[in-house]
């Protein structure tokens, strides 16, 4: 199980790389640099000559190569999880991860073939975050600290509410950001922290509205994260499994706001833009980890169930899946 956990962490890390590659595709406006899909200029993807990966092709084709590799890694993840994971819902979570990466690939193809329709591209960006969250969740659920908690489980309804709210807000903020990128509204308000020299834009278009919503969203998310971190530090100071992600969350969100400012000041410099996208994913994933750890008690029997099945297997017996399901509930 520890080997599987390490493998899933590798997959999650590869998804970060994939999100970065996708971010560079959008940031460099390279999404249509390869007009065909799934082939690349008529070549099978993995036989496309490396010396022809020039300009925007480097980013778009590179994104496809990394995506294919992540897809392959996810197949292994799903099969491996299905084979050795005793928790039935975990086995299905591996299958969901595989389904998500397949759907993600199809969305990527559709958006290329239909010349980047904004709803599809936004869906592609939003699903990327959900897929990343799935791999992070899998990594968390298979970790030794999750399966065998050393301290009594935290039962704090307020913590559960505030962390879940924060995670949902972050995801909504990412969707607004993706919308802003894919309708090319990144510079709809060209100054920061003011908007056309005012606190509120003096005139409005759809692009300005989306852009300004993203800025307001940044304030809301930052406040939510500070509230979450404050709650954790005030009520659960001794629980490092909560204080560490809470602190990290604050660091990530402050970095995110700073990067957001530099996105404007640099005039959408691709590397700054992409760093903003990747860091946004890290904010979401960290908040998700905190949310799940705050809800660990809802999974209270996970470790016990796992051990029960393992012991039964070692003893030569096998528990029926239905019993495992009842145990988990």
């Amino acid at each position, binding site marked *: 199980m520890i080997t599987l956990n390490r493998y899933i962490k590798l997959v999650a890390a590869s998804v970060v790389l994939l999100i970065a590659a996708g971010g560079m595709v959008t940031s460099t406006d*390279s999404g*249509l640099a390869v*007009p065909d899909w799934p082939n690349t*200029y*008529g070549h099978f993807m993995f036989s496309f000559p490396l010396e*022809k990966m*020039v300009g*925007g092709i480097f980013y778009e084709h590179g994104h496809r190569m990394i995506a294919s590799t992540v897809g392959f890694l996810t197949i292994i993840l799903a099969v491996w999880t299905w084979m050795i994971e005793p928790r039935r819902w975990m086995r299905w979570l591996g299958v969901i991860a595989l389904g998500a990466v397949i759907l993600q690939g199809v969305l990527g193809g559709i958006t290329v073939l239909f*010349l980047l329709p904004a709803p599809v591209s936004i869906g592609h960006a939003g699903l990327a975050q959900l897929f990343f969250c799935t791999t992070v969740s899998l990594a968390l659920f298979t970790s030794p600290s999750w399966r065998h908690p050393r301290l009594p489980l935290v039962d704090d309804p307020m913590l559960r509410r505030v962390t879940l709210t924060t995670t949902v807000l972050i995801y909504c903020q990412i969707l607004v950001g993706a919308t802003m990128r894919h309708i090319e509204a990144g510079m709809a308000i060209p100054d920061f922290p003011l908007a056309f020299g005012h606190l509120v834009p003096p005139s409005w278009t759809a692009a300005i509205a989306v852009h300004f919503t993203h800025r307001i969203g940044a304030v809301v998310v930052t406040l939510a994260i500070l509230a979450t971190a404050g709650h954790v530090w005030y009520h659960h100071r001794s629980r490092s499994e909560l204080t560490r992600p809470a602190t990290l969350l604050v660091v990530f969100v402050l970095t995110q706001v700073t990067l957001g400012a530099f996105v404007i000041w640099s005039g959408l410099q691709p590397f700054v833009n992409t760093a903003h996208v990747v860091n946004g994913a890290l904010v979401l994933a960290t908040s998700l980890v905190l949310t799940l750890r705050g809800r660990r008690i809802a999974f209270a029997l996970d470790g016990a169930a796992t051990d029960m099945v393992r012991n039964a297997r070692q003893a030569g017996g096998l528990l029926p899946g239905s019993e495992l399901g009842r145990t988990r509930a």
Partner: protein
Amino acid sequence: MNRALKVGGFIAVAVALAAAGCGGGQPPAPAPAADAKRVDPATAGSVSGKVSFEGTAPAPAAIKLESDPACVREHPNGMTADSVVVSNGGLDNVFVYVKDGLGNYAFDAPAGPVKLDQKGCRYTPHVFGVRTGQPIEISNSDQTMHNVHGGGTANRQFNYSQALQGMKNTTTFTAPEVMVRFKCNVHGWMEAYAGVLPHPYFAVTAGGAFELNDLPAGTYTIEAWHEKFGTQTQSVTVAPKEAKTLTFTFKAATP
């Protein structure tokens, strides 16, 4: 059986609708009205003039070509953007055209295509005019790959793959639109603009100069479009055989 027929019919209708909506290509350009007049060359006038540039022209922006060695080979001494080109006080690559006032005239369709070439990792010409329904032949003269992403809001978009030197694609635009953009996403600096019009009264400035010949007498709105400086319009009345002169002035501080 009936159910199978219904399902089959539904699928057929859905496929037909999808084909009409997604794969049917550009609708044909509208035909001129039956009572449309013809321009009489004997009485036609003209509008000519200059698009001036006031102030200090910005230095041409250097383009980073390093992402494609083939482009570097074409421009060993570097390349600059052709979006703002000022020569002798005149602004180049301004699309000047009759925006309004023509009334009900019919014009012969041009015989040949407009040619848009990708050579030296740039589009030539950078700005051009084309008639609705007139073919545009897009070719790749470079020893590198290009994609050609074109289209506007009134005209359907496309994205051609031109992987090899010598490849060509032909497209037509059926709706008037000023301007339609062409872009290469492999080489992000490569852009071209086409003004699509149902009449022949358009010109692209060279040295700032333009001419619109064979105009029937009338009062017209003339627009000058530039990719960085926006648009300006002027009204002009042309009497039979009259040659009118117009001057547009774009200022350095505008962009």
